C-alpha cells in the first residue's frame, strides 16, 4: 500500500472515529440515564464496529484488538443477552477514552501509543462473562454472523457523514426527548440517502475557494465602480449580472464552510457528566438549536470559551444536591445551551438554574481587588456589577477546584469572544441561576465596514464596533467639542463622550487640524470593551463589504490595525482595530471610570431595550417591528413586481417572493396600497420560506426601551408604543402573514 493512501486512510479513520466516539459518549450517557432504547445500542455498536473494521483494514492492530473487546460486550448488550448496568457504562466510557487516547497518539506521533490497556480489557471481558443467569453464556459471542453490516463498509452508517442534516436521529434522542415525533420521521428515512448526497471535502480546499471568491468580490467591486460611469447598456447589463452572481456565489461558498454548532457541543455532555460525577452534583444538560450553522473559523474560535463557560457553570453555578434541596430546588440542576440566528448574528445562550451571582460578593471582591472604588461600587447598577466578573483578575470562586479556576478567567473568555467580533452579556438572579448571552458574527472572512478618510488615507472600521455617526456643522463644529483638562469631549445626548482625532493618533498630516476653525466635524462613535468613544475623521465615505486580509508580521506590533483590505479601486486600505486604537489613544483607561458612573443612569431606564425598524405603511401610518424579524431590506424597481394569480410576487435570489401589501391588512380607511416606484420591501423569513412586506417608506432603526400599550383591537396591530416621542404602532407580522397566506407557517413546519 503506498504511503499517501495509507496517510489518507488514517486521516479518514481519525475524523470518523473522533466524531463517532463523541456520539458514543453521548449515547452511553443517555443509556445511563435510562433514556436509551434498542436503537441506541445499535448505534453505539455500529460506531465501535466501524472503528474496529477500519483500523483492522489499515493494519492498526492494537486499536483493532482493543475495539474488539468492547464490541463483543456491546454486541451482547445489543442482542439482549446482557442487561445494561451502570458499571458497564463507566467501563465503556473508560474504554472510549482508551480508544481516543490511541487515536490521538496515532494523530500526533503516527503510532498507536505504548499504554497498556489490559486491566481495562479484563474488566470489559469480566462484564461479558457474567451475564444474568437466564441468558445464554458468553460462548455465543461470535462476531459477525448476526451482523447486517459487512465489516468493510464503515461509511454506510450515518455518523460517517459530517452531519449535513440538522437532525441525525441518535443525536436528538439524548437531549431533546420531547421531539421524538420528528425524530421518528427522520429516522424512518433510509440512512443511505445521507451518504449518497454528501461528500467529504478538505477544509483547505474550501478556504482556497473562499479566497478566490474574495478576489472575485474585489474585482466585481472594481467593475461595478467602473461601469457606473458608462452608458453602454450591454456592459451595464453584464456588470449587473456579474454583481448578482458574485453575491450569490459568495453566499453559497460561505455556506459550504458552515458547520452546525452541534459539532463542538458533542463533547459537552461528556464533560458535564464527568465533572458532575467528580463534584458530586446532579446536572442535566439540555441542548437546543444544535443545527445552527456558523463558519468553521468561528466554530474553532468559540470552542474553548464555550467549554470554559460550561465548566464554570457546573463548577460554580450549579449547587450540590444537598444545597439545592435546602434551597427548595430539584436536586438535579439544569444547564441549557441554546443557539439561534438573529439579525445576521449567531446567539448562544448558556443558562443554568444554579446559585446565580451573589451581587454582594461580587462587590466585595471587586473592592478587595481594587477593581472599583467604593464610591463607584455604591452607584453601580446590577448590570454593571454583573459585568465586573469579566474584569481581569476577578474570580468569585472561594476555592480553586481542579475543574475550573485554573487561572483562565472570564476576562479571557470575553477577550476571545470579542476578538472575533462578538459580545458577552451576563444576567443573573441570586439563587435562581444565571444566563450568559453570547453574540457572534456568522463569518470572519468578509465583514461589513465603514470607510472613512483621514489625511490622505482611507481606513475601514468594522461595522460591529460602530455605534453611530455624528456630523457637526457651522456653530456646532466650532463649539461642539469641548476640552476637559486637555482631553476633548463631546456631549452626546447629555453624556460626555471622550474623543480622539484619528489623524493625530495615527500621526497623519490632515486638513482637519484644530477643531476650532472647522466648518464640519465628522464624529464616528465607536465601542470597544463595552465603552464608547468618539473619533474625529476628515470624511465619512461609505459602507462596504470588505475582505479581511492579515498584515505581515512586520506590522503585527501595531495594535491600531486589525488587518488590511483591497478597495474597489485596487488600492489597499487598513482596517482599524477599534480596541487597539482606543488603547493607543488612552481612551479605554480613561473611559472606564466614566462609563461605570455614566451607565448607571442609562441602565436604569434601559432594562428592556429592543432594536426596532421604523417604517411607514399606507399614508402616514408610523409603524415598527422588531429588527430580529427582518431578514433583509430590499428596494426593487416597480417594474420587477409581477403577478402570479391574484398575488403580487417578485423574483428574488432565484426564488419567487410573494409580496404582501401591509396597508391592505390595516383597518384604516386611508390605507392605500403602495404604488410608489421603487418599492420598499421588508423580507421576512421563517424556516426557509420568505415573504416580502410592501411598505411605503423605511424610516429608521432605533434601539429603545419599549412599553407596549396593549391596544390590539385593530387588525394587523399588536399594540402601540411611544418611540422617539411619537406614538408608533407595532405591526403584527405573524398575524398579517397568516391572513395573507394561511398555509405559510403550516407548510414551513412540514418542510
Amino acid at each position, binding site marked *: 500500500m503506498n504511503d499517501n493512501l495509507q496517510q489518507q486512510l488514517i486521516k479518514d479513520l481519525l475524523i470518523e472515529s473522533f466524531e463517532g466516539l463523541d456520539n458514543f459518549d453521548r449515547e452511553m450517557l443517555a443509556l445511563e440515564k435510562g433514556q436509551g432504547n434498542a436503537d441506541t445500542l445499535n448505534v453505539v455498536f455500529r460506531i465501535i464496529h466501524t472503528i474496529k473494521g477500519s483500523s483492522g483494514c489499515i493494519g492498526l492492530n492494537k486499536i483493532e484488538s482493543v475495539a474488539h473487546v468492547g464490541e463483543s460486550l456491546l454486541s451482547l448488550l445489543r442482542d439482549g443477552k446482557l442487561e445494561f448496568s451502570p458499571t458497564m457504562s463507566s467501563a465503556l466510557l473508560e474504554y472510549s477514552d482508551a480508544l481516543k487516547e490511541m487515536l490521538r497518539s496515532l494523530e500526533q506521533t503516527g503510532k498507536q501509543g505504548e499504554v497498556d490497556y489490559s486491566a481495562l480489557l479484563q474488566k470489559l471481558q469480566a462484564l461479558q462473562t457474567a451475564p444474568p443467569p437466564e441468558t445464554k453464556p458468553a460462548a455465543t459471542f461470535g462476531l459477525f454472523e448476526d451482523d447486517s453490516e459487512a465489516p468493510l463498509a464503515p461509511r454506510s452508517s450515518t455518523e460517517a457523514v459530517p452531519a449535513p442534516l440538522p437532525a441525525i436521529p441518535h443525536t436528538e434522542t439524548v437531549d431533546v426527548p420531547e421531539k421524538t415525533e420528528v425524530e421518528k420521521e427522520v429516522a424512518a428515512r433510509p440512512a443511505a440517502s445521507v451518504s449518497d448526497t454528501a461528500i467529504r471535502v478538505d477544509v483547505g480546499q474550501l478556504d482556497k475557494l473562499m479566497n478566490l471568491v*474574495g*478576489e472575485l468580490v*474585489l474585482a466585481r467591486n472594481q467593475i461595478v465602480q467602473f461601469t457606473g460611469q458608462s452608458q453602454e447598456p450591454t456592459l451595464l447589463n453584464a456588470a449587473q449580472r456579474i454583481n448578482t452572481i458574485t453575491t450569490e456565489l459568495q453566499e453559497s461558498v460561505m455556506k459550504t464552510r458552515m458547520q452546525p454548532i452541534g459539532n463542538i457541543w458533542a463533547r459537552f455532555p461528556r464533560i458535564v457528566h464527568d465533572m458532575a460525577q467528580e463534584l458530586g452534583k446532579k446536572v442535566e444538560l439540555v441542548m437546543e438549536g444544535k443545527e445552527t450553522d456558523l463558519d468553521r473559523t468561528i466554530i474553532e474560535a468559540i470552542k474553548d470559551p464555550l467549554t470554559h463557560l460550561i465548566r464554570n457553570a457546573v463548577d460554580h453555578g450549579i449547587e450540590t444536591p444537598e444545597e439545592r434541596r435546602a434551597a427548595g430546588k430539584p436536586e438535579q440542576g439544569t444547564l441549557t445551551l441554546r443557539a439561534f440566528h438573529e439579525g445576521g448574528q449567531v446567539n448562544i445562550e448558556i443558562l443554568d438554574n444554579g446559585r446565580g451571582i451573589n451581587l454582594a460578593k461580587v462587590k466585595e471582591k471587586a473592592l478587595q481587588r481594587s477593581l472599583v472604588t467604593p464610591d463607584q461600587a455604591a452607584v453601580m447598577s446590577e448590570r454593571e456589577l454583573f459585568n465586573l466578573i469579566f474584569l481581569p483578575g476577578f474570580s468569585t470562586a472561594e476555592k480553586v477546584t481542579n475543574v475550573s479556576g485554573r487561572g483562565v478567567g472570564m476576562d479571557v473568555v470575553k477577550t476571545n469572544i470579542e476578538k472575533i467580533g462578538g459580545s458577552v452579556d451576563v444576567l443573573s438572579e441570586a439563587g435562581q441561576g444565571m444566563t450568559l448571552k453570547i453574540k457572534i458574527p456568522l463569518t470572519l472572512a468578509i465583514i461589513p465596514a465603514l470607510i472613512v478618510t483621514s489625511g490622505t*488615507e482611507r481606513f475601514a472600521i468594522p461595522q460591529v464596533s460602530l455605534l453611530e455617526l455624528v456630523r457637526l456643522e457651522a456653530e456646532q463644529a466650532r463649539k461642539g467639542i469641548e476640552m476637559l483638562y486637555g482631553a476633548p469631549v463631546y456631549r452626546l445626548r447629555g453624556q460626555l463622550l471622550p474623543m480622539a482625532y484619528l489623524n493625530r493618533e*495615527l*500621526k*497623519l498630516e490632515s486638513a482637519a487640524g484644530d477643531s476650532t476653525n472647522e466648518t464640519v466635524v465628522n464624529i464616528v462613535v465607536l465601542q470597544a470593551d463595552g465603552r464608547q468613544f468618539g473619533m474625529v475623521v476628515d470624511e465619512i465615505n461609505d459602507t462596504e463589504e470588505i475582505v479581511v*486580509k*492579515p*498584515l*505581515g*508580521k*512586520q*506590522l*503585527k*506590533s*501595531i495594535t*491600531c*490595525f486589525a488587518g*488590511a483590505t*483591497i478597495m474597489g479601486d*485596487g*488600492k*489597499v*486600505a*487598513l482596517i482599524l482595530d477599534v480596541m487597539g486604537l482606543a488603547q493607543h489613544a488612552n481612551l479605554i483607561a480613561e473611559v472606564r471610570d466614566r462609563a461605570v458612573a455614566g451607565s448607571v443612569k442609562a441602565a436604569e431606564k434601559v432594562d428592556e431595550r429592543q432594536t426596532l425598524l421604523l417604517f411607514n405603511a399606507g399614508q402616514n401610518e408610523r409603524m415598527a417591528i422588531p429588527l430580529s424579524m427582518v431578514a433583509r431590506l430590499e428596494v426593487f424597481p416597480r417594474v420587477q413586481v409581477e403577478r402570479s394569480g391574484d398575488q403580487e410576487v417578485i423574483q428574488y435570489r432565484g426564488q419567487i417572493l410573494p409580496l404582501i401589501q401591509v396597508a391592505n391588512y390595516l383597518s384604516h380607511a386611508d390605507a392605500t396600497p403602495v404604488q410608489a416606484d421603487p418599492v420598499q420591501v421588508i423580507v421576512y423569513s421563517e424556516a426557509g420560506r420568505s415573504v416580502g412586506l410592501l411598505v411605503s417608506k423605511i424610516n429608521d432603526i432605533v434601539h429603545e426601551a419599549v412599553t407596549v400599550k396593549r391596544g390590539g383591537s385593530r387588525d394587523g396591530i399588536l399594540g402601540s408604543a411611544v418611540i422617539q416621542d411619537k406614538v408608533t404602532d407595532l405591526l403584527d407580522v405573524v398575524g398579517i402573514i397568516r391572513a395573507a397566506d394561511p398555509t405559510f407557517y403550516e407548510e414551513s413546519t412540514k418542510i
Partner: protein
Amino acid sequence: MTNTKQFCTFFVNNLFFGIEVLKVQEVIRYQGMTRVPLAPATIQGLINLRGQIVTAIDLRRRLELPARHDEQLPMNVVVRSDDGAISLLVDEIGDVVEIQDDIYERPPETLKGVARELVTGVYKLKDRLLLILDTEKTVDINAAGNRS
C-alpha cells in the same frame, strides 16, 4: 569544476546587491502604495499584488543609506519569506547572474553597522563587488525597529 549559484541582482544607492534567485518570487514596477501610520520608517507601505497584500520595505532605509530622490521611483523585488511575500524596494534592477563559488568571500571584518548583519558574503566579480543579502534578516523589521 566548482558549483555555481544564480542571483537576482539590483542596485541600491549605487551598491550592487544580489539575492539568491530561488528566494525571489517576482520583480515588478513601482506600484501605488498605502502608507501604514505608526509603522517603522523602513516600511514604505502596502501594495496589492494580485489580491494579496504585501508589505514593502525600503531597502535604502533598511540598509541605513541616504534616502531616494522623490522623482526616482523604486522597483519591487518580491521575495518569499516564512511569513509570505514581502517586497524590497530597490533603485534599479540588474540581471540574473550565474556565479561560481570560488570567487566568494565572507564579508570583511571592517564592514560596519547594519550591513554587517544583513550581508552574508561578497562575490568578487571582475568589475565590481556583489553583496549578498540575507533575506530573512532583511525582512525581520521588528528587531530592527526596536533597536533604532
